[in-house]
């Protein structure tokens, strides 16, 4: 029974590890970590298990405090953390369970272009996208929205962009929650947050955000791949970004506003970053209204990023976006809190599901899925590191039964950014990638070093755990060709 930073860990089966509720007096439920014998060592050493145990102390938490296979140390919640609280029994909402980058997520576009079409002009194409898609810190986009327009975006998400003629109309259906969460209230978003969002809708940002041109290297589930419009050898584009400064400010504002809630509502917390309030409280309701506004802003952001990518490809290949067969496969949120109904002990319950670095993975037949995916299940988009691969998975019934319909959200870091920069010293990450046939472009000085493939866990191994544990099924493996980063 290994010990990981003061918590007890038991192996349940090949891919499941339990932190028993009685290993700490303040835990209300077990911790359940999805990992393998090969990967659990990094998890134990990384301090994330204590965070799983900390989340297990939240009032109203049901079933277990979960950690997906890409688990690593975050702040407050671990990254890869999933926690659901019973909203009718004093269950809490914790802004730290969503994080600063509210509705950070991934959008995948498919095309009728082949790997060869893109490959023979890859360098030129990467430079083209790098020029056309605003990325990096302090870089505004071509879209400037006044406060009134930002309010519309926060209330209506992608739908407002379509009405304004700023984006094509066919995407909302294949966007999680239709690209707009109900219950958003822009009045709950501070002027400061709005100001941070004015010129950032349609910009990529820095850090691990990217636009990547890829190709479908292998299809694992022909039926699901066909339903998603994917086939081997096809070029795809993946976009990873979130709510930009607007979301960061909303989270910071509400962590501050909720500071006194634990003492007001008699909640004892092991970490200040977990500050929370009962779902029904006015404080939690205000946060949720603001968080939903930021989530809608994030969907609009990815919509405008996709629009710029479409235009860029269209000009580059001299054909319309329609003629190139560019269509959205799906768009998922991986930092969010949502009210969902799940069956707990045979009874349907309304829960507030926090996904912090975790992707919704609903199974076939779920009422929230668009009709075209209702018999396959939801596409689950897993961005990997820029040298290896990204994955498309599909949701399963087992995920519905066990993880509130959730799966991992990426590879998960193993190296800190400083370690990654040190490991890259004297090397040329862009040249190393070029030797593997990948063109990478970044604005920031440390961008490529921090995000080098070695800084991440093996995404294939993470996906193996997710599939073996039954949280999702493999549909397609995507290989990067051209990467644009902030």
């Amino acid at each position: 029974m290994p010990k990981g930073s003061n918590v007890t860990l038991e192996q349940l089966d090949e891919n499941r590890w339990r932190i028993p509720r009685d290993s700490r007096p303040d835990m209300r439920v077990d911790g359940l970590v999805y990992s393998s014998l090969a990967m659990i060592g990094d998890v134990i050493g990384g301090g994330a298990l204590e965070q799983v145990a900390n989340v297990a102390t939240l009032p109203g938490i049901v079933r277990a405090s979960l950690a997906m296979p890409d688990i690593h140390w975050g702040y407050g919640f671990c990254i890869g953390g999933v926690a659901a609280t019973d909203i009718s029994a004093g269950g809490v909402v914790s802004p730290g369970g969503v994080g600063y980058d509210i509705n950070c997520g991934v959008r995948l576009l498919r095309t009728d272009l082949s790997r060869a079409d893109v490959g023979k002009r890859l360098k030129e194409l990467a430079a083209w996208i790098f020029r056309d898609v605003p990325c990096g810190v302090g870089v505004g986009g071509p879209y400037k929205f006044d406060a009134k327009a930002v309010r519309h975006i926060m209330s209506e998400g992608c739908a407002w962009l379509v009405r304004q003629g700023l984006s094509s109309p066919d995407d909302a259906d294949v966007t999680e929650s239709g690209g707009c969460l109900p219950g958003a209230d822009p009045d709950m978003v501070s002027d400061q947050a709005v100001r941070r969002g004015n010129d950032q809708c349609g910009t990529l940002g820095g850090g691990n955000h990217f636009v990547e041109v890829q190709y479908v290297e292998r299809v694992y589930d022909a039926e699901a791949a066909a339903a998603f419009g994917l086939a081997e050898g096809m070029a795809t584009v993946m976009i990873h970004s979130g709510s930009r400064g607007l979301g960061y400010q909303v989270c910071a504002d509400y962590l501050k506003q909720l500071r006194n809630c634990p003492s007001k509502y008699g909640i004892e917390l092991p970490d200040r970053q977990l500050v929370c309030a009962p779902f029904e409280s006015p404080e939690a309701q205000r946060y949720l209204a603001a968080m939903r506004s930021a989530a809608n802003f994030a969907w609009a952001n990815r919509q405008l990023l996709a629009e710029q990518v479409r235009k860029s490809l269209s000009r580059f290949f001299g054909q319309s976006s329609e003629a190139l067969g560019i269509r959205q496969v799906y768009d998922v949120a991986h930092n969010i809190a949502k009210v969902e109904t799940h069956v707990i002990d045979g009874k349907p319950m309304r829960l507030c599901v926090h996904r912090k670095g975790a992707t919704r993975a609903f199974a076939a037949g779920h009422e929230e899925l668009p009709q075209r995916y209702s018999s396959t299940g939801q596409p689950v988009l897993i961005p990997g590191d820029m040298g290896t691969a990204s994955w498309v998975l599909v949701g399963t019934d087992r995920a519905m039964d066990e993880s509130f319909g959730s799966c991992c959200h990426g590879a998960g870091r193993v190296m800190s950014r400083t370690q990654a920069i040190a490991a890259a010293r004297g090397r040329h990450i862009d040249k190393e990638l070029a030797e593997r046939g990948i063109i990478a472009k970044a604005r920031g000085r440390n961008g490529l070093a921090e995000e080098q493939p070695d800084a991440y866990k093996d995404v294939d191994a993470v996906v193996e755990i997710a599939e073996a544990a039954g949280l999702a099924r493999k549909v397609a493996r995507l290989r990067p060709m051209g990467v644009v980063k902030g």
Partner: protein
Amino acid sequence: MAGHCETFDHTADMGLSAWGDSPAELLAALAGGLTDVICDRSRVRPAAVRTLRVEAQDIEALAVDFLSRLLYIFAVDHFLPAEARVTVQNRGENEIALTAELAGETYDPSRHEIRTEVKAVTYHQLKVAPEGGRWVGRVILDL
């Protein structure tokens, strides 16, 4: 003697670890450290001065709020402080405030190469306290 700030490692993010002879000196050191995470602070000129006032209920929250305000003015006004002069006012129980005079300049992409984007200042494992005759602080940033 002036305070001092350095970074420490955190898997996904990065932390600031600082000390000073007083809370004010510590906070000033953290401000300088934050600029250094964003870009090379030695290249930021103290060309303009801005004043900030921040209030909070305790010194730890004050540190987070102060650094968060610096991120905000960088995001919105593109202002980078090179130096901060801080004074702290203890105003009784559950009330503490600071005034900061920031000497810096507007971000200029041609001279200030961005090292990384700092999204936010977290409360995770936050510590601001007296220790061994001086004040020490530890803050984790979300990158």
